[in-house]
Structures are given as structure tokens and as C-alpha cells.
């Protein structure tokens, strides 16, 4: 799942003939003045300025400004660019034509196991949630393209009439094309607006998710997916992502501020169960972390050091299932080095470490971990005979 920003989504819409308002994405307000000289619409239309970043609740934060002329848009852009919101900084704004319109519609498509489903409603905009029962659904089996007649029929059933139904169907058919050909997972246009005087349509806002695994067959994907955690990544998360991109196997980290149980867990499946176990036992996690696929020990070491630096942690859960091919001895040597390094820098004071693991070279790995007791670590080491998440119970009861 890879959410992409409005700008790249608009670009893909344009490519597939889905009407979008005129727009520009800028990083420097002065560029807007220059673009204004070149583009009539910037001088003559009402404009909307939005922070072009993955920041939730932009409206409330004052990061969306409506009904502006070019000068006001310049001021709005100047005010937004560089603003710090939590851990994120606004670097880009999108300036778009604010189309005067008569009606707002809803159009979306989402993939499922058997193909996809098109959703249409003539009551789009902010009220769509309240009018969810008016949404008309059209099931599209995998690798099939519904006829324009079938889509028009669906539009009519959704309450569109006459020429508008035909035009909406046309736009929907292009949306299906865009969805299929761009390896999209979901596209939501809300609102799709119409100015009836000249029958002009435009997708005023779009949320698009593409399948990032399919990027090898999309030479023109010049964008990057936005953060998947509803906020921008912290510096530590970004560092771990950079390492992850370079190595065989993977290392992952998400910080959860306020928690005091740190996770240093192995495997995409097991790591989730460890998080669950902490929550189920009333604890609060300081992070989600995972290493898997036999990553190099230095990458695990870097992940370990990052986790040791998390504030206010009381326990570190070094958990994992019985690995199929991740070498326990090698990955543990990375963790051990990370612990030593962290301790020498003054971290891990009053932190208890709980270890449970199995897999290739488990005896050597666990023995090496156990030796840390001699170096003054508060470390408790268990082998495969300890039920996987029961070290969480032990930690929370200690």
C-alpha cells in the first residue's frame, strides 16, 4: 500500500483523461509569481492553496486556504512553506484553480480479491459519509472492462440524469483505465465537481494508493509514496528505512511516543504478536520493530542502538519465533554489539532485557546473549521451550 500525494495523482489523472483543475506544485513562493505571468488561469481564477504533504487534518491546521487571488495565494504559500507541524515540515504547496461549481459528486474504485469495485454517488463532498446508502456499486471482475453502457446504467441508478450521467460514466471508464494500468489499489475522487454552464468537470480532490511493488513496470512514476503512518517519519525511522533499502532482508521501526516497553523482535508475523501481547497485558509499547530475512548483523546492530535510545523505556523484548533461515548467532551478535555500544554511551540504565528465540545456531546465539549477564546487563534469556510471547508476561510481572 503506497499512498501518493495529490500532485502525482493529478498527473496520473491527466495522463488517463480524467479532468482535473489547473494546478501547480511549488517549493518557493516566488515561483508562483513567475508562473502567474505565464498562466492566465492563475491571474484570473479563484485559487486554493494546500500544503502538499502527508499531514492529516490540514484544514484545521490552516494548511488549506480557499478563494484566493494570485497575491493572496502568494502570501498563503509564503506562510505555509517552512511551517513545522509536529515532526513534519511543509516543503511544498499545491496551488489549484478553485472551480466555481454547481454540484459535487463522489467517484471511487478499490481493488479486492476478485477484481475491483466502482462506487458512484451524486451526493459527494463532505456529506458523503452521511449519504453512504446512496452509493451505487459496480462490481468489475479481474481483467474485465465494463462497457460504457453498463457504467452509464450504474450512473443512472446512482441518480445521475441525462447528459451528466453519460459524462460521469465516461469519466468513470477513464478512472477504471487509470486504476488498471497504474497498478492502483484504490482511487477516491471526492468531490468530482461540475460547472453546468459549460458542463466542465474536475476532480477537485483525490486520494490514490498505488501498489509500490509494481514500480518496476512504471518508468514514469517519479514520485515517492508518502508516509504510511499518518505522520511524517522521525529521523530515527528514516535512518532505519535507509538501511532497510540497502540490505538483504529487512529492518523496520515505528516509534510510539509515551510507551515504556521497547520491542526488538524478529519476523513480520511474530513481531505483531509481541506488540499484541504487551497491549493485552496492559503494557504500553514504545515502538514497533522487526528484523527478518537474515539481515546483516550491522543492520540489526543499528536497529538495536536506535531502540536503546528510546526515552523512558523499562524493558526491551528481544523476541522471535523459531527462525527458518535467519541466523540467530549472527543477528544476535549485532544485537549484543548494539547493547554494549549503548551501555557505554550511558543508555540501558535500569532497563531489563528479555530474550526468547530459536532457529539456526540458536545455542550459540543464546549463550552469547546470556554472557551479557557477566557484563552487568539485566538480561533474561530463554530458549524455544519458553512460549513465544510469555517473556512479555514475565517482563510485565517483574
Amino acid at each position, binding site marked *: *500500500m503506497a499512498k501518493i500525494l495529490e500532485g502525482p495523482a493529478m498527473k496520473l489523472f491527466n495522463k488517463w483523461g480524467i479532468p482535473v483543475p489547473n494546478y501547480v506544485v511549488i517549493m518557493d513562493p516566488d515561483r508562483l509569481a513567475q508562473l502567474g505571468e505565464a498562466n492566465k488561469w492563475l491571474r484570473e481564477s479563484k485559487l486554493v492553496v494546500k500544503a502538499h504533504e502527508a499531514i492529516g487534518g490540514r484544514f484545521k491546521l490552516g494548511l488549506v486556504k480557499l478563494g484566493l487571488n494570485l497575491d493572496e495565494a502568494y502570501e498563503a504559500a509564503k506562510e505555509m512553506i517552512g511551517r513545522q507541524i509536529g515532526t513534519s515540515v511543509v516543503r511544498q504547496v499545491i496551488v489549484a484553480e478553485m472551480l466555481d461549481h454547481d454540484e459535487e459528486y463522489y467517484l471511487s474504485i478499490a*481493488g479486492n*480479491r*476478485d*477484481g475491483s469495485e466502482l462506487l458512484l454517488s451524486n451526493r459527494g463532498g463532505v456529506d458523503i459519509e452521511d449519504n453512504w446508502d446512496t452509493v451505487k456499486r459496480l462490481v468489475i471482475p*479481474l*481483467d474485465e472492462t465494463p462497457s460504457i453502457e453498463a457504467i452509464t446504467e450504474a450512473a443512472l441508478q446512482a441518480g445521475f440524469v441525462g447528459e451528466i450521467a453519460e459524462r460521469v460514466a465516461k469519466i468513470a471508464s477513464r478512472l477504471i483505465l487509470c486504476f488498471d494500468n497504474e*497498478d492502483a*489499489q484504490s482511487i477516491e475522487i471526492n468531490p468530482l465537481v461540475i460547472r453546468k454552464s459549460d458542463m466542465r468537470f474536475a476532480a477537485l480532490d483525490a486520494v490514490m494508493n498505488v*501498489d509500490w*511493488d*509494481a514500480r*518496476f*513496470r512504471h518508468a514514469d512514476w517519479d514520485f515517492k509514496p508518502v508516509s*504510511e*503512518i*499518518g*505522520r511524517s517519519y522521525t529521523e530515527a525511522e528514516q535512518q532505519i528505512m535507509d538501511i532497510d533499502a540497502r540490505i538483504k532482508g529487512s529492518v*523496520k521501526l*515505528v516509534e*510510539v511516543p509515551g510507551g515504556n516497553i521497547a520491542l526488538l523482535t*524478529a*519476523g*513480520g*508475523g*511474530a*513481531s*505483531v*504478536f509481541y*506488540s*499484541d*501481547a*504487551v*497491549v*493485552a*497485558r496492559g503494557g*504500553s*509499547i514504545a515502538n*514497533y520493530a*522487526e528484523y*527478518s530475512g537474515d539481515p546483516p548483523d550491522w543492520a540489526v546492530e543499528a536497529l538495536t542502538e536506535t531502540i536503546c535510545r528510546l526515552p523512558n523505556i523499562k524493558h526491551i523484548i528481544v523476541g*522471535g*519465533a*523459531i*527462525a*527458518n*533461515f*535467519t541466523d540467530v548467532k549472527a543477528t544476535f551478535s549485532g544485537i549484543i554489539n548494539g547493547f554494549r555500544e549503548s551501555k557505554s554511551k550511558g543508555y540501558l540504565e535500569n532497563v531489563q532485557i528479555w530474550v526468547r528465540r*530459536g*532457529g*539456526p*545456531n540458536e545455542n550459540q546465539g543464546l549463550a552469547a546473549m546470556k554472557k551479557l549477564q557477566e557484563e552487568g546487563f539485566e538480561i533474561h534469556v530463554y530458549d*524455544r*521451550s519458553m*512460549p*513465544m*510471547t*510469555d517473556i*512479555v*508476561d514475565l517482563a510485565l510481572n517483574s
Partner: protein
Amino acid sequence: MSIIANKDTRAVIIGGIAGLNAARRMAQFDFLINRPLTVQAFVYPPEEGQQKEIYRGGELNNVTVYSSLEKALEENPQINTALIYIGASRAYQSAKEALDAKGIKLVTMITEGVPEKDAKRLRKYAIETGKIFNGPSSIGIMSAGECRLGVIGGEFKNLKLCNLYRPGSFGVITKSGGLSNEAMWLCAQNGNGITSAVAIGGDSYPGTDFVTYLNMFENDPETKAVVIVGEVGGTLEEEAAEWLGKEIRRIKVIASIGGTCQDVLPQGMKFGHAGAKEGKKGLGSARSKINALRAAGAVVPDTFGGLSKAIKQVYEELLQTGVIKPEAELDEKLLPALPPSVQEVMKQGDVIVEPLIRTTISDDRGEEPRYVGYAASELCEKGYGIEDVIGLLWNKKLPTKEESEIIKRIIMISADHGPAVSGAFGSIIAACAGIDLPQAVSAGMTMIGPRFGGAVTNAGKYFKYGVKEYPNDIPGFLNWMKQNVGPVPGIGHRVKSVKNPDKRVKYLVDYVTNQTSLHTPCLDYALQVEKITTAKKDNLILNVDGTIGCILVDLDFPEYSLNGFFVLARTIGMIGHWIDQNNQNSRLIRLYDYLINYAVKEEREVPEKKQTT
């Protein structure tokens, strides 16, 4: 008994190194249960025609790599299963070909990062063709005592610990690969082990799902209970619950679902697997799955750790009701041990191997090379030079400062003698023909022999002989040489003579005799010989080869090493000539006609070939 993989499974692996590693792991299992090799062929076009070495215990098998699945199946019609290890961008095509192949019934995809659309299409295609497509992102499939597909089950020791050498009564279906192994262990630890375990992969749209395999397990009389490990995202677990609740099922279902922590994590956060993402309006959440499974009668402990107790409880119930009959456990000591490699056995001192070669000069098995015991970096640190490395590697001795100075001078004055001599000229011709450095330098090297540069060794050798056998009898020595060898090596020069002495010889002799305290019996002897020979003929002087040979003998280098000094020194020059020609981008050399005397027959007609003599 088992599902989908069994004793009759014969597999082809499509992909490169990851597939080879898996085949080797699979052969360990084949060895454990004494079944024929599971992997019968590889398909990987870049390595077409190669044979991959696969050990089944101590038995070495060569498995062929084919360029296409079609060819692999043509020569191995017994293959009924395909394992896809090839990269994500080619995985779809490979899997589709496998689904199209007549004999193949099961395609399981290990490849990760496969686009969703590709997986959806493969799922649909498998349903249409009536075949099984498992994965993507599946660690594999295990049927205890019968077949292992993929690295599922981990290392050899773990296969035994999880009792995978014989069937039990539990089925396992997981999304996660790591947890498939954990679940197999839990079934062995708290029950009697597994029948089969399938990892369906953690992607959004796996080709087969819990219900697919629940149906199979329900129809497998040996399977009495199934352990499901699912996670947040999608509705496969809900479908499993629906299946369970729909009618009375023979098998018991025990489940654990990951992702209940999502309430406290950042919204929309992605977990380890691609398919693990929040469902809309509760559906697809871990909580919804757990509730659905519990409502349908599955045993769902509140943490994964609780699975141990749940499995134990179900096992004991099944024992009490007689559904599972306790069987005498095999003595694990009777199971075969994986033959260790020679290295491993040698470490334990249990085997003696006669070495193939012996070395007495260097060893790089430690952190850095050691020359006759001395660490290279320590030699550098203590001020030793290249002459000392030569002394160590050629003669196992560290030269004195004086000796080093002599060695250095010998190399310096021998490094190059201009482009006209055979060696340099050979290198230059090669360089001009566009030949690379090592080959061009060896072209020059091949010239070194009896007529060019090769006299150092023989000069040293015979003068040393003279010192020993004719110490005070130069005429006797010369007479012996005349009868047994011929002209004295190291004596005589084409252009230099007594009146026109070789400056290099003069310099070296002066340096060694006047500026060092080296004892020089061989050089002194050669100079005595020169006195006699020059009296006969003006140009029969001690030449530079002779001088160097004698000095090196006096330095106590073994006589057969002496040409090495010329080779070493001249290498510097030849490399220089190669670089020089390349810098100039020199053109290919061809001899001008006027430099050749064409002493051949005149142009004439070719006669008809004679039939007989």
C-alpha cells in the same frame, strides 16, 4: 497422511541462488526421512546447462539447470510441483507457465514483493485450471515424514526437534513464514506433531487461503486438529470462521490472530506483511477475526504464548476421546545425523587428511599475511623494505642492511634496458595489439631464457661450482667448462670489452667490494676467471648477468632462485612499456616488407590433389 505435498512430490525450482539454497535444505529433509531427492531440476536461463551439486546426506547429486520449464519437464516428466524463487518482476510469467504445464499440479511461490494484480491473476488462473497456487511470499509447505517444499522447518536439528520425520495429528496454516516453524514446534512440544504445514504468505491476495487447506485437512483422516495463525487485514480469517461454523467439522480448530495492538499504534500503520493493514469499519481487524473464530467454535487464546496451552489441551482431549491413539515414540538417536563437512570433522580432530600441497613461506589464514611467520604490517612498521620481503619469501632469511642495499641496486640496474631487447619488445608488440597488461607482460616474460636474461642462474651456478671444485685452478675450471658446458655463462659481451667496460658491472663490483663488508668468494673467483679469458679475447669480460649471479651466490640465495631477480626487475620495465604504449594509444605493429627477406618459392599453380602415392 498429508495434504498437497507427499512422498510422490517431485519439484522443479524456478530461480537462482535462493532456489539452490532451498534445494540444499530440502535435500537434508530427503535424507532425514530417506526419500528420493525432491528437487529434480532447476529453471534459470542465465545458468543453462550447469549442474548444481546437491548433497542428500553423503550422497552427491547433480541437478541440471534448464533454460525453460518446457525443456525441464520434457526431460523430467515425473515433476509435478513448481517452486517459484525468481525475482518479482518475472514471477508472474514463470508461475503462469508452470500453471500451464500439463504435469504440474502445485505451484508455490516464495518470491516476495509481487504486485497484487499479478497475484490476483494467478489465483484466478489456478482456479480456472483446477490447480493449486500457493503464495506469493510463502516460506513453503511441509508434510511430516513425506516432503518438504522450501526452507520451512529451518535447520536440520530443528527438523528433528519438531518431529518432522514422522506424521502427527495436527495441521498448520499460517500467513507468516517464521510462525509456521513456531507452530510446528508447538505441535511437537505440546502434541504429537504435524501432518502438514502450509504457509500461505502474508500478502493481501494469496493464491490459496485458510479455507482451501481447511477443506483438505478435513478430508485427511490423519489430521485431527488444525492450528491457524492469521493476522489483521483482509477477510481470510473471517472466511475460515464461516467455514468452521457452517456445519459440524471433524477437525478441531485452534487459532491465534495478530494485530490486536492496532488500536494503540499510529493509524494506518503497516506491519511486517503487505497484507496486514487495517480493515474498514472493523471488518479485517484482529478483534473481528478473533470474535468470528471464537463464535464458530475455534479455540483462540488471548496471546500467541497461550497457543502452547491450547494445543496441549486439545491434544489431551483427543487422546482421552480416543481420536488420537498414543504411539510409541521413535528413539531420536536412531535418526540419521547429517554428515558433517571435512572442515567440521577436522575441527573436532576426528579425521586425518593428507595435505595436497605444503608451504614453508607464507600464511594468510589469520588477520593478515605472515611471511615466514612475520606479520606484513609489523615488517612495514619496523622499517623493513621490499628487499626484506624478497629475502624472506625466496630465501627465508631477513637480509642485513648491507645486503638489502645490494639487492636493491641489483633490481634497480636491471629494471629495464630499453625497448629493443627481446623482453621489452615482446611486451610492446602485445601492447600495440591491444593485449591487456598481465598477458602483455607475460609475452615479454616468455622471452627470458638461454639467450636473453636467463644467464644469471647458470653464471651463479658454475662460478659456485668453480669455487668449490677448482678453488686455485682457474685453467682447470675453464677446461672442465669447455668439456662439459661450453662457453662460460656470465662471461662475454657483444659490444663491451676491456677497453669499453660495462659501467653497470664496474659500479656493482666497486660498490660490493669497497662499500660493503660482504665476503665475496664467488665474485672474486669470477674476476680471476675474467683476467684469464680477457687475455685470450678482449670482449670475454665478466658481464652483468655473471656479476649479479656471483653476488647473489655470495648473498647466499639458492642458485635456482637467481633468475628470479632478473624476472622481478624486468617486470617493472615491461609494465612500464605496456603503460607507455597505452598512454600513446599505439597502433598495431606490422613488419614492413623491407625488413623481411621473403626467401620463398615464386608464385605457382596449385596441382590437383593426388589420390594415391
